[in-house]
């Protein structure tokens, strides 16, 4: 049974046709890397999946339920979809611990003790247990991104959406974030990532989706597809990024 299903999704920004009929089916436990040039619609696609962007035609279902941008819908979605952003988007006025505890306390109505236990466990998982009382600005980019992952995990999502989460990091910090993702993938978490990390896509990912001009141009098993691209566009793209 598919966890995320997109059926002929069209998205316009005014006259600009960004997504031109996307079909995609993602099963639980898959690690799907969405690659493609900037402007090909990858981030928009990701943002449609959790209702941050409205699509105009077609349908998206998550766990069998339809996705819309309706506020109540989006809040219900948030219970099963986590999202990590390129710029972390941590709450700067709260400590790391408070960042992770906030949503479990006020959305899931967990007790403070329970939320704190979850938060500590999640921070442990991303290797930042000792930063519980630090403020985000005191952390490196890589650490901030790991806190953002812990914050999303604290809501025990069924799927994590990662929007170019290593693109704003210094090269030497990329590894620590990817290691956390790899660990999550091993544990069976469903990951959908927009990424430029081809090695990660090949080694950890189960599937690669190549987007071009608002369409899914080519997709398939990550190792096969990346070592043996079929379309000229993907060959060109691979030549440009590698």
């Amino acid at each position: 049974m598919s966890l995320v299903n997109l059926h002929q999704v069209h998205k316009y920004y005014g006259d600009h046709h960004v997504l031109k009929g996307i079909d995609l089916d993602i099963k639980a436990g898959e690690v799907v890397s969405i690659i493609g040039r900037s402007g090909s619609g990858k981030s928009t696609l990701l943002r449609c999946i959790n209702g941050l962007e409205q699509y105009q035609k077609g349908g998206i279902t998550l766990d069998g339920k339809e996705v819309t941008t309706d506020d109540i819908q989006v809040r219900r979605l948030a219970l099963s979809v986590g999202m990590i952003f390129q710029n972390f988007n941590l709450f700067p006025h709260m400590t790391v611990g408070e960042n992770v505890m906030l949503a479990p306390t006020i959305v899931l109505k967990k007790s403070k003790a329970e939320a704190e236990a979850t938060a500590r466990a999640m921070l442990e998982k991303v290797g930042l247990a000792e930063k519980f009382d630090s403020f985000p600005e005191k952390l490196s980019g890589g650490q901030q991104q790991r806190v953002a992952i812990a914050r999303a995990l604290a809501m025990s999502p069924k799927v994590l959406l990662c929007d170019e989460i290593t693109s704003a990091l210094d090269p030497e910090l990329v590894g620590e974030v990817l290691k956390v993702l790899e660990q999550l993938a091993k544990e069976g978490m469903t990951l959908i990532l927009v990424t430029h990390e081809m090695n990660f896509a090949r080694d950890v990912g189960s599937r690669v989706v190549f987007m071009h001009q608002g369409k899914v141009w080519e997709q398939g098993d990550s190792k096969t597809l990346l070592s043996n691209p079929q379309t000229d566009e993907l060959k060109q793209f691979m030549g440009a990024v590698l």
Partner: protein
Amino acid sequence: MIEFSNYDILRNLLFATQWTILLSLAAFVGGTTVALALTAMRLTRNAIMRTLVRMYVELFQGTPLLMQMFLCFFGLSMLGYEISAWGAAILSLTFFTSAFLVEIWRGCIDTLPKGQWEASRCLGLSFLQTLRFIILPQAIRVATAPTVGFSVQVIKGTALASVIGFVELTKVGTMLNNATFEPFKVFTLVALIYFMLCYPLSLYSKHLEKKFNVSR
């Protein structure tokens, strides 16, 4: 004819200053309350609410405060609502203050990254929860200095209430001038008292600004 000593003048002016302070406080409290509600309305995705707020701001920023006071005082009485000078002054100053504060606060909220809203939404926070836990705590830090700075405008704005007959500092100043024919002395004292009310606020606003900039 009664003779007014310097002491009498000062005593009367200081007594009237209480009313200026009281009117300023009332206008400021009323203005911030209304501005808070308007700010929340403006942040919703409801286009009608946002347009209403914009019209409100345009209306009260785009017309002189004095005309607003006249309309509140004389206009409401003509419509059959008896309103005291005190009531009309508070009402119009509340409109005035809130219209400016909404705009000041809008600027402060707009400086927060859009990602703060998106992250909150993705974590399942409702609009009001996002405002309360994420946006307001951050916006208040940015907004305090300009808000305190604007309170100076409110204090000076209360002087206009003298025109509709509310007896505050300026009104008592004119009355004393009529009795003593010493405009220079009387109005210098009036100006000095306004300055002593406003200057500490300006200083405090600057101090807050610096404090905020350092801690960033």
